């Protein structure tokens, strides 16, 4: 969720709630003979309100399960989750008088702190990373399809290599008119070797398939000696990178990848340059997919902490509430 001026109302409401609670808490803490405790009337009130905020924040998960129910706008739920969930922390601190108490309450306090901090971290990431992704990953695809797209890119590169160097023994799982992510067909008419060449970059950049086809140069098969440097580079570096991108590979960094391709281009005859350029573009797309993957992990990885801990928090919080009220 983007933290922009549309959040102003929630921000002001949250500040108002916090200031009101603070105004109640400070004189209470200063005058309570036993100090602020969770068992006092005000302490209980803070606890109940704080727990209610936690429940509301947790209800977002349930709300997402039933998106068609008319339970208010999803945006409002998300904002409520963000701001009321954040407010739960100071209210629960007021509830316990900034004491972490016994075993259960200490566990609860740490669960709450980690949940809130992870939530704030996640909100910050979601506010920041999409901008970076828009800039750095213009070839962004659907995350769940990244593996599939990466396989297509590798097969596309294999075909390009075989069109240039002759059969290299590669196997293909997709047909020539391979289906691309999102269900669209990204291909172009082939040159003399009738090998499908990669057009995803051009298509992604807005070019029509016809334009991409028109721009495709003629490809001439290289002999063994001519193709040797290119084959070595492809088999030793590019193909492993396309299969399993590793950050240790020099192709994972744009500048070093450019140098590598320039070196290969120097060793290869001019007739292979168009294919090498195409391979470079495939590599670039694979690199962007890796970056997208990493950013996606950051964008959603914090949920591995946030959601399970928040569920445990709600469960143990309910136990604490029952036991505290009962005793």
């Amino acid at each position: 969720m983007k933290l922009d001026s549309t959040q102003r109302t929630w921000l002001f409401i949250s500040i108002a709630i916090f200031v009101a609670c603070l105004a109640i808490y400070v004189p209470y803490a200063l005058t309570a003979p036993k100090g602020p405790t969770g068992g006092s009337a005000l302490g209980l009130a803070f606890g109940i309100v704080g727990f209610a905020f936690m429940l509301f924040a947790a209800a977002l998960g349930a709300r997402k399960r039933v998106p068609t129910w008319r339970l208010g706008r999803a945006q409002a739920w998300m904002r409520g989750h963000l701001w009321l969930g954040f407010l739960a922390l100071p209210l629960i601190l007021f509830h316990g008088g900034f004491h972490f108490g016994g075993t259960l309450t200490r566990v609860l306090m740490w669960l709450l702190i980690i949940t809130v901090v992870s939530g704030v971290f996640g909100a910050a990431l979601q506010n920041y990373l999409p901008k970076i992704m828009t800039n750095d990953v213009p070839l962004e695809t659907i995350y769940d399809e990244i593996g599939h797209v990466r396989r297509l890119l590798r097969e596309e590169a294999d075909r390009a290599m075989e069109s240039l160097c002759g059969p290299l023994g590669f196997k293909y799982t997709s047909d020539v008119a391979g289906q691309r992510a999102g269900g669209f067909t990204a291909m172009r008419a082939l040159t003399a070797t009738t090998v499908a060449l990669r057009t995803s970059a051009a298509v992604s950049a807005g070019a029509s398939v016809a334009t991409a086809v028109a721009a495709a140069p003629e490809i001439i098969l290289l002999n063994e000696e001519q193709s040797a440097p290119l084959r070595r580079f492809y088999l030793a570096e590019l193909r492993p990178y396309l299969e399993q991108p590793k950050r240790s590979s020099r192709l994972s960094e744009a500048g070093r990848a450019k140098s590598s391709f320039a070196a290969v281009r120097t060793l290869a005859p001019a007739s292979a340059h168009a294919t090498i350029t195409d391979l470079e573009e495939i590599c670039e797309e694979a690199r962007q997919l890796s970056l997208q993957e990493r950013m996606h992990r950051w964008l959603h990885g914090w949920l591995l902490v946030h959601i399970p801990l928040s569920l445990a928090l709600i469960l143990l919080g309910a136990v604490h509430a029952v036991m505290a009220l009962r005793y």
Partner: protein
Amino acid sequence: MNYFKRPTPLKRAKLWLSLALPLVALIWIAAHFAMHDSRVYSSGRLSNPHAVFETQCAACHVEKAGAYSAKAENSACLACHDGPIHHAEQTRMPNCAECHVEHRGKINLSAASNQSCAQCHSELRTNGGAAHFSANISSLENGHPEFRAAATNHDPGTIKLNHKLHMQPIRSAPGGPSVQLECFDCHRPPGVTKPWIYADGKYLGITASYTDKDQFLTASSSSLKARNPATGRELMAPVKFATACAGCHLLTFDKRFDDGVPHDKPEVVHTFLMKKFGAYIATHSNELHEMQDPSRDLSGKLLQPRMRTLSAPQWVAEKVAVAEELLSHKTCAQCHQMTKQNLPDTSIARWSPANVAAGTVTSIANLAAGGNSAGMIGAVAPANITLRWLPHSRFDHDAHTGFTCVSCHAKALTSTESSELLIPGIATCRTCHAPGPNHAESRCFECHTYHDWSQRKEVKPAFRLPALHTGGE
């Protein structure tokens, strides 16, 4: 087209963690429940003295229908501790747990909050009419009045002492070396056993006829007795002549003797002098025949030498009278208020013409006949030494030994009159004792006692060690 329904590793991990973590939490709580271990619900660790009850909730919390009450009962506390009341006139009797808050970890349980005291003292009411104390005290910073002694700024003591003079280099005796006295040379708590520098051995072991009770003011009866026994280092002991003064202030009375009179009541001194001069003249009878020393004429004229002969009692009486005149007018009066000057005609010792003509002295004859057993030294006013300046609170000098005396008793450097009060006011205390992390403790309990331990009752032991270990009788 249904790729979005396929679980990714991230989604799978999220799902499993979302199931596993609450499950672990549930198992954890259920395990404690199954083992009847209520510690997990405790609102905090117990203080050190109560740590043995960490697993024994029932020791303090009453169990009703399988659940423990949230509040500890007074009876549970009183089973081990007596809690004498604060004042008979107090209108409200707080529960033990209102002031002594448990489950706050390893804290000092007796360190009650200011708010606990302020519940009554911020608007003090009593059952016995008007309160004797300030009625609106919330804390040391808020509403606490100036110490009563400091407010009156008067020392009722009668011993004359110029502190300023004694704080500067001073001669230890006529013709003696200059010394720089330290506060510790005169003022010490009774618990200190270090030898006194300016003591005189002749006076140390002697039992005087007067008692401390005659000289000290009694402490206020409304002060509450502290629970813990005194260490003997809290308050300064009253300054004694034998330990602090005798090294310099000699009580000599006649050039014939090197030693001084006892530091005692006038009648004791008189008896001492009579015996001393009597014993002397018995072995020096030639001194009964006296020739007046011309140099003693105050007019400066050379007079004809005059002769006289005295009987031994006359001689003794005259010498005693002269010594007592010296003591009464100078030696004793230097430090003590002499409330009654009953000296007779001391010209008997001045060779008055009448005495010479008579060859004897009427008044001396009277004295010699035992007309005045108390002698001629005036009555000495009681010292009225205040033992405890802050009777409603505890002050511990030992806890402040890191600071120089004049840090707090700054007026000692400039005070010339003993009537000037030298104890510091509350502002001095507040320079260190204030709320906040950079200050010393300032809560009420630091100086005041709530329970009046003079009313303490003995408690019958309620626990046996095996019961603590096994959780039941």
